């Protein structure tokens, strides 16, 4: 036998080739794009239950906060004889207009105490008792205070809870029912253990939307003019250099927002509290007319209500905020923000009437 070659049959070679083809196919499928669902049966159901747990925890927090807020509100109201003098410092959605310290008491106060009744002599010399105190006002004042105090708690909560979200109803003696305007929303599949910091976005009209960022208070829609946002970002840098963080809780408001506030459609209930328009104008910017943007600076997107994050904002904190915000740019010496002297939380920039007036006078604070 010449040139006799040993060998295996062709079927073996085909088998080996087929095997490696199969192996290659498996790996291509394994590592390639495929429709494998990265979870298991029951994953979504468990996630839904987990979200329900979060909701339960949030609802408990709200209930508990409401309880504390109510007792605090009653205490504060009682301290002032049932009359609440608006201190816009504590109002999240109020439009700054004039100084807001006028007493709501119809008969004024006597040595600091609000008068409930007054006696007046009529023409015949008889004394006539005049009631200065309306029970309906107490309810409105209590609702207002309760909402204000509850908002403070809601803003503290580590996840987003909407503020000014309740319509209150006082029943019998002191049973208060708060009906939510918007439902609480929880993502079922989003992993909330990771920090989800939203990025700023530009709206169609060129405004900067920084809602959900560290600069904007939770549950608040934050929109600003581009220049104003840049000034705010610079102010935030100055705050961080001093070991603080800014928190904007009111920025741009649409005309409709302003009308809603004026018409008492928000939890502040200005219309109900101040049916007389002339008195209401002391607290809320009048939202009608062609010059509304001039009178209501929040409508320009160049005004903010801001505070230092995590601070109780007592006198020294407001001073600190002013030092950070209303300062001159180091490089250009130009005025950055102008503080409205009546309201330590309100700042304007970038060409509002108040800003231009302050600039002309060379000051950083103006009435």
């Amino acid at each position, binding site marked *: 036998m010449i040139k006799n070659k*040993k*060998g*295996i049959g062709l079927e*073996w070679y085909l*088998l*080996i080739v087929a*095997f490696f083809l199969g*192996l290659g196919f498996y790996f291509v499928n394994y590592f390639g794009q495929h429709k494998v669902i990265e979870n*298991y049966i*029951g994953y979504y159901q*468990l996630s839904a*239950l*987990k979200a329900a*747990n979060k909701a*339960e*925890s*949030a609802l*408990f*927090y709200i209930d*508990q*906060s409401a309880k*504390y807020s109510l*007792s*605090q509100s009653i205490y504060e109201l009682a301290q002032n004889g049932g009359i609440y003098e608006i201190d816009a410092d504590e109002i999240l959605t109020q439009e700054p207009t004039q100084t807001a310290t006028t007493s709501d008491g119809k008969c004024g106060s006597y040595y600091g105490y609000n008068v409930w009744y007054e006696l007046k002599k009529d023409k015949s010399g008889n004394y006539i008792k005049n009631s200065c105190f309306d029970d309906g006002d107490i309810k409105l004042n209590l609702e207002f205070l309760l909402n204000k*105090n509850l908002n*403070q*708690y809601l803003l*503290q*909560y*580590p996840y987003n809870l909407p503020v000014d979200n309740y319509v209150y109803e006082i029943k019998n003696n002191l049973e208060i029912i708060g009906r939510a305007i918007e439902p609480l929303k929880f993502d079922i599949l989003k992993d909330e253990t990771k920090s989800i910091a939203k990025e700023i976005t530009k709206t169609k009209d060129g405004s900067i939307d920084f809602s959900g960022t560290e600069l904007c208070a939770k549950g608040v829609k934050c929109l600003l003019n581009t220049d104003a946002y840049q000034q705010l970002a610079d102010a935030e840098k100055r705050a961080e250099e001093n070991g603080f963080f800014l928190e904007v809780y009111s920025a741009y408001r649409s005309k409709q927002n302003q009308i809603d506030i004026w018409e008492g459609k928000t939890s502040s209930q200005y219309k109900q509290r101040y049916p007389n328009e002339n008195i209401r104008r002391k607290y809320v910017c009048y939202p009608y007319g062609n010059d509304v943007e001039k009178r209501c600076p929040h409508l320009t997107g160049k005004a903010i209500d801001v505070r230092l994050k*995590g601070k*109780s904002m007592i006198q020294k904190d407001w001073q600190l905020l002013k030092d950070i915000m209303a300062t001159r740019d180091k490089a250009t010496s130009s005025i950055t923000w102008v503080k409205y002297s009546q309201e330590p939380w309100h700042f304007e920039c970038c060409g509002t009437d108040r800003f231009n007036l302050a600039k002309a006078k060379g000051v950083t604070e103006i009435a």
Partner: protein
Amino acid sequence: MSFKIINNKKGIGIDDAVPIIIFIFVAALVIVFIRINEKVKHDKIIEDIQRQKDALEGNSILMSYIKTVDEHGNNKADFISKSITGKNYDALTQDIKEYFTKKGIDKNWYVDVKDASNNLIFPSISDTKYSPQEQYSSTQTAYPVASVVIPINGFEPGYVHIELYFSR
């Protein structure tokens, strides 16, 4: 001339067997790889399901604790708030320990009470079997199962986190 071949056996040489040996070896390796891969995936899923189950159980235990109401109508959240503002940490520690021990949780557990900055207000409260240090220096792994935020009724609104951890 004639001859006869007897007992002639057909066969292949060692060089012919090499591809088959390699084939079998590679096939075995691939099968082992696939099995291990599947096992790891499977174990991960089982672990994940177990943790989700623990989270539900833990949440139920934690929520029932803070919702427990005493004879005066105050719940445990009120007690926690009061203890934190009054810095009465010993009573709070004791109360939490008693409650969770009574619950007879079949795993090692510990509870952290943290402030808004996520710092521990006082040392972790754990079951008596292990201290947290012993639990986590070993091969056992701790994982969070439930957390609740409790408002503090103080001069300034604030809150604390109560976090429950299990470990195996």
